[in-house]
Structure formats: structure tokens, C-alpha cells
């Protein structure tokens, strides 16, 4: 999985800081993605994980920091470059954010037509392919209100993948789901990981994080305070903030949720 350090990273977010409501919510956070990297962000609620992710595709404009896509630094004040960045950095939200007035295939096809300029026919064809990839070929003409939470999240994943993103950001993609629906979404995400899709994911599914992550970053009070390979941070007996946090997390849910479907 690990690539030589000499290779240009596909995405670099460097020294991001963000102030919200007069407080420094994000304090000098950096992340660097190489092909095939799956980085998992964990940390207590309010640590700034969502803020960090949203700064990376500039849904929130960072107050400080640089963002590089491959060799190119993105000037986020320039709307063309901003759209270019967002087109290449896909995002999956906790509460799906499907377009409620469009059926599944139109949800996927919309940006293909409006951003990539595909014809209606081509866009729909591609949309159907992407939906098939997440196991929803037979749900293509259903509307969000007619889908289960797990299906909605899979449509959202298909919608992001259709743009051929360089990196995928996932903000607690299974937190809004009923426990029995978590597995179907994790299965799709793991499948992507195994096909080398670079991802930055916020999750509390530690078992899953351990299985797919190439690196875990632990955030607290706006800073990344620990990072490393899952085995280094989470091996039994290790003394780390990450380990400590995970132990408390596991005590809380006593292992009844988050089983990964095999």
C-alpha cells in the first residue's frame, strides 16, 4: 500500500486553520494523500473532524492553509479552480444530501451533465453503471423518499464516484443509519478501498477503520494529536490517546453495532 515518498501526492492539505464564531476550530491540520491511501479521522465529537473535511473541498473556506491537487496548488478564491477542486474531491455526507426532487439515476446524472457537459443519454448510461456498482441497478428510478437510509447513502456514493474523483471524503457515512443498514454501506466502502480508491473518512466504526485504514489520525480540539498505522496505534497494550479513546468508545457501545458484513 505504501508508496515511495518521492512520488507526488495526489492531494495535500497543509497547515489548515479555521475560525468559527470567534474560536479556532481547526488548528494547523495537515493531511497528505498518496494513491491507495485510506486515512481514517477519529476523535471526540466537536474535535473539528467535519470542519477539517469540509475545508479540504472548500465547502468551508480555510482561514489559513494551502491545498494542492497533484502538482497544482488550488487558488480557492478563483471560482474555476474551486469547481475544479470540488470536481476532483468527492464528498459523502452523514445525512446523504441526495437531491430530493430527483430519482436515483438523475441524482447521479445531474452533475455529469452540468459539470462535465455530458449528453443526457451518456449521463444516464453512466449513472446506471455507477448505481449497478453499488448494487442499486434495480432502484434507479426510485426517489430518495422511496429509499432506505442505506440505499440513499449508496446512491450518494454512486453520485460521487460518477465524477471520477481523485480522493473521496466521507464524513461519518454510517452514523445516520439504522444498525442493520450499516453493513451494506461499509461493504461498498470497503470494496472501494480494496480497489485503491483514496479516501479520507471520519468514522466511529473502529473495527472497520482498523481493517481498511492505511493510517489513523486522531483529532482533538482542532488538532491532529496522533497519527500512525492502525496496528501501531491500536495494538493491544499500546498506550496512546487513540487507544484510550477507542477503549472508551467500545465500552460505550459494548460492541453491539458496527459489525462488518462479510
Amino acid at each position, binding site marked *: 500500500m505504501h508508496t515511495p515518498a518521492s512520488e507526488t501526492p495526489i492531494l495535500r492539505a497543509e497547515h489548515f486553520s479555521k475560525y468559527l464564531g470567534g474560536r479556532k476550530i481547526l488548528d494547523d491540520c495537515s493531511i497528505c494523500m498518496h494513491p491507495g491511501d485510506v486515512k481514517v479521522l477519529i476523535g471526540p465529537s466537536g474535535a473539528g473532524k467535519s470542519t477539517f473535511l469540509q475545508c479540504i473541498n472548500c465547502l468551508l473556506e480555510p482561514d489559513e492553509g494551502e491545498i494542492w491537487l497533484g502538482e497544482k496548488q488550488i487558488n480557492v478564491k478563483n471560482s474555476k479552480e474551486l469547481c475544479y477542486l*470540488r*470536481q476532483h474531491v468527492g464528498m459523502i*455526507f452523514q445525512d446523504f*444530501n441526495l437531491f430530493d426532487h430527483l430519482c436515483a439515476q438523475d441524482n447521479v446524472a445531474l452533475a455529469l451533465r452540468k459539470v462535465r457537459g455530458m449528453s443526457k443519454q451518456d449521463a444516464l448510461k453512466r449513472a446506471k453503471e455507477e448505481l449497478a456498482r453499488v448494487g442499486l441497478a434495480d432502484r434507479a428510478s426510485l*426517489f430518495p*423518499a422511496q429509499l432506505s437510509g442505506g440505499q440513499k447513502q449508496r446512491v450518494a456514493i454512486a453520485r460521487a464516484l460518477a465524477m471520477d474523483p481523485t480522493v473521496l471524503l466521507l464524513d461519518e457515512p454510517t452514523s445516520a443509519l439504522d444498525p442493520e443498514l450499516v453493513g451494506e454501506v461499509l461493504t461498498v466502502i470497503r470494496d472501494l478501498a480494496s480497489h485503491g480508491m483514496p479516501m479520507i473518512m471520519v468514522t466511529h466504526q473502529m473495527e472497520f477503520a482498523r481493517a481498511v485504514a492505511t493510517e489513523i489520525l486522531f483529532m482533538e480540539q482542532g488538532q491532529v494529536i496522533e497519527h500512525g498505522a492502525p496496528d501501531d496505534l491500536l495494538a493491544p497494550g499500546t498506550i496512546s490517546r487513540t487507544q484510550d479513546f477507542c477503549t472508551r468508545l467500545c465500552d460505550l457501545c459494548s460492541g453491539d453495532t458496527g459489525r462488518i458484513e462479510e
Partner: protein
Amino acid sequence: MNVFSAIIEALPYILEGTLVTILLVVGALSLGFCIGVPMAVGQVYAPMPIARLISLYVWFFRGVPVLLLLFLFYYGIFGLIGLEVSTIGASCLVLGMTSAAYQSQIFRGAILSLPAGQLKAGRALGMRDGQSIIHIILPQALRLSIPGWSNEYSILLKDSAMCFALGTPEIMARTHFVASRTYEHLPLYITAGLIYFAITFAGVSMLRRLERKVRIPGYNTSGM
């Protein structure tokens, strides 16, 4: 003079006025829609000075009686800017500008009621804000606006009677004209009232049908 013969004799004349009323209402609603939608979008998304300017417009047109606006524009402002319009044209413009103020607030409310995630999702896919507004925000907001819009329609229809004061030959003006000559006030005004009632009913049920037709599958509108 027999009551019924008075009505029957006056009816073609009043019905012609009905066409004028309908023309006024359709024209004013359309104008209000065309100005109201961009105003709502501007109020929500445009930078401060533009949003302020729109608020000022809304504040003015909502704060002054329609009758005063009709006089102000027809006898005052239109002359001042050298605009020569018929009474029908003037009525249409003034009602339309007023309706734009009210309609913009209907649309603004609908836009604000959408989850913030909708625009975020559009942005996250690389869509420009204008594209997201046109293809994501407005299709949903306009659907939500239909009940409020139907209300605006029924109010505007009745406001159009005010145009009588400019001499616009609509239902009210014609009824008044006939009534004052024949002295059959009661039956004639009842007739006019029934015509207003019928147009209101027809329009509201048409909008009700539209609402059902564009309903998003999976949502129920019964409120239960």
C-alpha cells in the same frame, strides 16, 4: 325593470370585463413571478448590498396600499418617466410589481426551508452556485411554494378590483357602471361577486391539481 333581465342584459358587458380581470391577474402574476423568483434568490444568496436593495423594494411595495400605488404610478411616475400605457397596462404593471414583493417572500420562505445540505451537495460535486440554484434549489422551492402562491393568486384577483379606480374596464368598473345607471345594485353586485368567486375557485383548484401533479414521489401531501 325585471331583475333577471337586468342581469342578462348586463352580463355580456360584465363578462367582457371578466376577460380584462383575468388578463390583469395572469399578467400581474406572471410579471410578479419573473421578478419575484430572482428577488428571492438574491435576498437569500446575493451579497449584502443587493439583498438590502431587494428588501427595500419589498418593504416599499408591501408597506403602501395598492390603491395608492395605482394612483402614484399611473398619474405620477409613469408620466414622469415618459411611459405611455393604457389603464390595463398600468394596472398590470403596478399589480405585477406589488405581487413580485409578496411572491418573493413566498419563494424566499421556501428556499430557506430547504436543508442547507442540498446546496452543499451541489457544490461538493463541482457545480457552480448558479447551476445548483437553478437545478437543485428552485425545483424544490417552487414546488413548496404552490400553496402560498395559490393564496397570492386569490388575493391578487380581488386586489384587481381596485383598478376600477383608474377606469380600467374590468369586472368591478363595469358592474359599477351598469348598476349606477339601472339602479339594480343588489343583483348586479351579487353577479359580480359570483364571478369573482368562480374565478377564484377555478384558479385555486387548478393550482391544487398542479401541486399534485408535480409532487415528488414518496412524499405525501396529506400532512399525515
